[in-house]
C-alpha cells in the first residue's frame, strides 16, 4: 500500500477488491486476475485494501469471459424492476439484486472496463437511492464555500463550467456526483464516472457539503435567476440517471428531490464561456453569509 493509504495496483492480489464511493462499499470479486488488475488500475483511488471481513453494502461477482469481436460495445441494456435489475445484452449479462445485496455479471465485450464502469454507474445510482441519497448528472466543483453543482443533460455546459473553474475550485467530477443527506444539509461525493473526454482528471474522492445547485443557461450575460421550487424539483428529477426511469421509484424520488430543494438553493445560472460566473457565485455566497443563510 502507498503512504497515502491507497492500494498499489502492481503488488495487490487481484481479487477481491473493495470499491468505496460515498461511504458505500462494494466487494468486487473480479475474474480472471488480469481483468481484476485492469479494474484496479481504472478505479484505483476508489479501491482500498480488503481484509475479507470488512462489512460491505454490496457484493458483485464480475467475470470477463473473453472478448468476442462480433459483439458491439453498446451501453449496458438494463431492465429495472423494483429491487432487481437485469442486464441482458450479448456484451453483458447478469442480475443485480438490492434484496440480496449482490450481483452476478458476465462480460464478453471488447471493452470490458467500459462495461464495468457502466455497471458501477448503475449500481451506485441504485445504492445511493436505496441509502437515502441520489446520484446526480452534474458537474461538482469544490470551492471554499462548499460544492457547487451544475446540473443538465449532455451539452448543457457542465464540462465547460468545469474547465473554466481552474483556480476557483477542485473539480470533483464533470458528469456524475453522489449526494447523501447529513442532518439538514447534503454532502456531495466525487465519483470516478467522468466524461470520457476528460478521463485524465480521474481520482477526486473528496466530499463536502453542497453550497448551491445551478441549472445552466448559455447566455451573453452572466447572472443568477431564482427558480420556483417545482421547476427546481423537476430539474433535479431530470438529472437522476437510472432511478428516474422507474415508475415504482418515482414518488420517493420526487419527495427526495423536494428535500434537497428545501435544503439547498437551486438557481438558474446564465453564463458565457469564461470564468466570470465564479464572480457571480462568490457574490451570491457573500450575500447568503451576510443574510445568515
Amino acid at each position: 500500500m502507498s503512504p497515502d493509504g491507497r492500494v498499489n495496483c502492481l503488488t495487490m492480489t487481484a481479487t477481491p477488491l473493495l470499491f468505496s464511493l460515498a461511504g458505500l462499499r462494494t466487494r468486487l470479486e473480479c475474474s480472471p486476475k488480469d481483468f481484476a488488475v485492469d479494474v484496479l488500475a481504472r478505479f484505483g483511488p476508489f479501491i482500498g485494501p480488503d481484509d475479507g471481513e470488512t462489512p460491505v453494502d454490496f457484493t458483485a461477482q464480475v467475470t470477463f469471459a473473453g472478448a468476442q469481436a462480433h459483439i458491439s460495445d453498446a451501453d449496458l441494456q438494463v431492465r429495472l424492476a423494483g429491487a432487481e435489475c437485469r442486464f441482458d445484452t450479448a456484451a453483458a449479462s447478469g442480475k443485480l439484486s438490492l434484496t440480496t445485496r449482490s450481483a452476478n455479471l458476465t462480460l464478453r465485450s471488447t471493452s470490458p472496463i467500459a462495461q464495468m464502469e457502466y455497471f458501477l454507474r448503475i449500481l451506485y445510482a441504485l445504492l445511493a437511492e436505496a441509502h437515502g441519497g441520489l446520484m446526480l448528472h452534474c458537474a461538482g466543483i469544490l470551492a471554499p464555500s462548499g460544492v457547487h453543482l451544475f446540473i443538465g443533460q449532455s451539452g448543457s455546459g457542465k464540462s465547460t463550467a468545469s474547465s473554466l473553474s481552474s483556480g476557483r475550485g477542485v473539480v470533483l467530477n464533470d458528469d456524475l456526483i453522489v449526494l447523501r443527506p447529513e442532518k439538514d444539509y447534503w454532502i456531495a461525493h466525487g465519483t470516478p464516472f467522468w466524461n470520457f473526454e476528460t478521463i485524465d482528471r480521474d481520482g477526486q474522492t473528496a466530499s463536502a457539503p453542497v453550497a448551491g445547485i445551478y441549472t445552466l443557461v448559455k447566455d451573453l450575460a452572466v447572472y443568477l435567476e431564482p427558480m420556483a421550487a417545482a421547476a427546481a424539483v423537476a430539474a433535479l428529477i431530470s438529472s437522476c440517471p437510472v432511478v428516474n426511469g422507474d415508475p415504482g421509484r418515482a414518488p420517493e424520488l420526487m419527495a427526495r428531490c423536494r428535500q434537497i430543494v428545501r435544503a439547498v438553493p437551486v438557481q438558474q445560472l446564465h453564463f458565457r464561456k469564461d470564468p466570470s460566473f465564479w464572480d457571480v457565485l462568490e457574490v451570491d455566497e457573500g450575500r447568503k453569509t451576510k443574510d445568515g443563510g
Partner: protein
Amino acid sequence: MQLTDVVAHTPGVVSRMVDGEAVLVDPKKGMVRVLNPAGARIWEMIDGRRTVAELAAGIAAEYGIEASRAQADTIAFCEDLVRRGVLTVSK
C-alpha cells in the same frame, strides 16, 4: 376535445404538488413537466369521472373568470396534456 369528454391521468404518470405548482413525471417516457398553479388545480380535480365542462366550471368558480374563457382554457390545457401523453380521454 369536447366539453362532454372525461379525462383521466395516464397510468404510470406520477405527480407531486410543490408550492402550488405540480411536478409531473412519466418515468417510462423520461418526461418531467411543471404545471402552473391553475394547471395544477385542474390536474388535482381530474379524477377520471369529471367531464371537461365540470373541470372548467370548477376553475371558473375558483378563479372568478367567465365560463366561456374557463372552458376554452381547460380544453386547450387538456388537449396539450393528452398530446404529451399524461392525460387520457374517454368520450
